[in-house]
């Protein structure tokens, strides 16, 4: 029985002691959810992703069970990113904060870094202003609306005007109960800077799990954000994400996405370049195996002239897994002198895997530079032989070659510890 009901929205909001405005927001979103049909393969954006095997009726709102407080967690979750300079660390289990610290330096700067519920109660003005207003809208689709109604947990990062966050921020959203609705909201005011690693993960489970997430990255004029969203859910998770970055005049958003887990992922990721001088880079790293299905819909919207976007998504595929990358660069009329690039490269480790790569351009200005590239390739046997001819066993040679495929993107993740962990996961998946 479907437990996504109006009563459930009210119950969730009450259990979180939310102010009236947030309850109203949720109820409005719920109405939109109810009036929006479940997407099917007849919808253009969903043509290549079939939800038939999803047991949606078994999903429900995130519940605050004992797991959130008692679960034994993988040891890596508590590892700090930067051994010698603690910034902000936030560990949540099923939307409930387990560990939290924010350095004095960051506090003194007025940097706000906390879980979303704390933000609602302590910084209501900021949340009301930015929560699903400028980034993702509840009316973008069934799952965006569902998220608006049932969001739970996640991270709020706010950096005040002309402030360079003294240290990187790190949040880990761990899921035990198989229902996660996390919300990431980042607001960088004019002239500010931050580095934020946002990880979401879970263990494996026999029952289907559900992640319905939203990520909003709002980068003001002259501001500079490095954001890495790193997903490593268990193999039976179904993930539906709406993510949007928005960049102001002369602002910069360097956005890295890594996707390793889930049974199925459908994510919409959009970069809005709003003012002259906006710069946005999107880097995607994914590795699918088994029967994983990963469908990434990216958009680079050049809403003003003199804007630059640069997208490179790379995937490796094994077994009977399937990936879809559908990319679009859009330029509004009058968006002259823009530079847009998109590329998708896929490395097929098995013949039974399948990758669809669909670039697209919608350009309504005439003085632009927009290019795209896509490629589907296999491991190069000459490369493997060359490595082997130096005494490196075949398996290690394959691991090196696959790591090499991802290396240029990995270098965009600013922390060695995280890079090593992702490389570790890739090696693990190669050998599965």
């Amino acid at each position: 029985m479907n437990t996504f009901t109006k009563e459930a929205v009210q119950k969730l909001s009450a259990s979180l002691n939310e102010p009236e405005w947030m309850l109203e927001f949720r109820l409005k979103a719920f109405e939109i959810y109810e009036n929006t049909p479940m997407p099917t393969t007849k919808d253009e954006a969903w043509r290549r992703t079939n939800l038939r095997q999803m047991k949606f009726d078994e999903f429900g709102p995130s519940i605050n069970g004992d797991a959130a407080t008692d679960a034994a967690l993988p040891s890596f979750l508590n590892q700090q990113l930067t051994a010698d300079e603690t910034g902000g660390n936030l560990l949540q289990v099923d939307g409930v904060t387990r560990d939290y610290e924010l350095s004095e330096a960051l506090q003194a700067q007025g940097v706000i870094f906390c879980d979303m519920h704390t933000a609602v109660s302590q910084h209501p003005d900021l949340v009301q202003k930015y929560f699903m207003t400028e980034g993702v809208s509840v009316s973008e689709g069934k799952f965006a609306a569902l998220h608006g109604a049932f969001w739970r947990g996640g991270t709020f990062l706010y950096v005040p005007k002309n402030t360079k966050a003294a240290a990187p921020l790190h949040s880990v959203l761990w899921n035990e109960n198989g229902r996660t609705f996390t919300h990431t909201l980042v607001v960088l005011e004019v002239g500010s800077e931050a580095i934020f690693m946002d990880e979401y993960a879970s263990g494996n489970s026999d029952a289907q799990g559900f992640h319905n997430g939203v990520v909003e990255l709002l980068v003001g004029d002259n501001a500079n954000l490095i954001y890495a969203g790193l997903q490593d859910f268990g193999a039976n998770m179904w993930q539906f994400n709406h993510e949007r970055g928005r960049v102001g005049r002369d602002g910069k958003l360097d956005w890295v996405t890594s996707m390793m887990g889930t049974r199925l992922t459908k994510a919409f990721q959009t970069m809005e370049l709003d003012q002259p001088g906006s710069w946005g880079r999107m880097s995607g790293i994914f590795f699918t195996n088994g029967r994983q299905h990963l469908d990434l819909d990216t958009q680079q919207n050049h809403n003003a002239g003199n804007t630059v976007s640069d997208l490179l998504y790379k995937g490796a595929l094994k077994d009977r897994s399937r990936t879809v990358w559908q990319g679009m660069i859009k330029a509004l009329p009058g968006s002259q002198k823009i530079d847009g690039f998109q590329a998708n490269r896929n490395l097929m480790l098995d013949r039974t895997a399948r990758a669809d790569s669909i670039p697209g351009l919608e350009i309504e200005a005439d003085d632009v530079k927009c290019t795209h590239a896509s490629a589907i390739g296999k491991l190069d046997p000459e490369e493997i032989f060359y490595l082997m001819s130096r005494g490196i066993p075949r398996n290690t040679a394959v691991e090196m070659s696959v790591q090499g495929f991802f290396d240029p993107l990995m270098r965009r993740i600013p922390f060695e510890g995280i890079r090593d962990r992702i490389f570790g996961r890739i090696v693990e998946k190669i050998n599965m």
Partner: protein
Amino acid sequence: MTALEVKNLHVSIGDQPILKGIDLLIKSGEVHALMGPNGSGKSTLAYTLAGHPAYEPSAGQAIFGGEDLLEMEADERSRAGLFLAFQYPASVPGVTLAKFLRQTINSRRQAVNPEDKGISIPAFRRLLKEKMDMLGIDHKFAGRYLNEGFSGGEKKRVEILQMATVEPKIAIMDETDSGLDIDALRIVSEGAMRLKEELGMGILVITHYQRILNYINPDYVHIMLNGRIVESGGPDLALKLEERGYDWIREKHGALEEA
């Protein structure tokens, strides 16, 4: 004392026989030169001995250090002490030269002891610096992706750097001299000769030109034609080729082909 003994080796690519019975014996500390016109099968021999999967012997044997080389995977051959300096080394995007060299060392250690944690970073840095200096390679290359965007000459130096790192017992140098200017040729040749003097490495130099043999002096010279070694002799054979070309060889052994 390690020997590479090739006996009556036959290799076909598809239906096309390329090697038609090669016999060759290379011992530690010896330098053999293998010469011959394009298409005579020299590189096929090199690839076959190194274990390239596309070169499957149809008959014959290769014994290396008393073991059946042809039964071994390419990586086992390398760890047993056979080295091929490639004529056209592959590039490995995303893998730095340093990471790669470190893995070649660690794979050797781990083949002996699977628990081995590998060479320490400081020890590896020292080793790499020393070998790079010996071959006049800029230290910056350590951080570059292996062979990617390297010039022909840089690739050849890096092949010899790999040789110096893994210290093989027998090395095959497949047209290492092509694409090298005279200074690079001298440095690379001196590097190889040092390994021969210090380690007693045996060398098979595959070349078209006498030039490299001025630096790596051969004890034996073999001439290959149409998949067979048709002449073997001392260093003077290479000089004779330089002077007279291959026509006299073709005339002398051409009949063989038509038979």
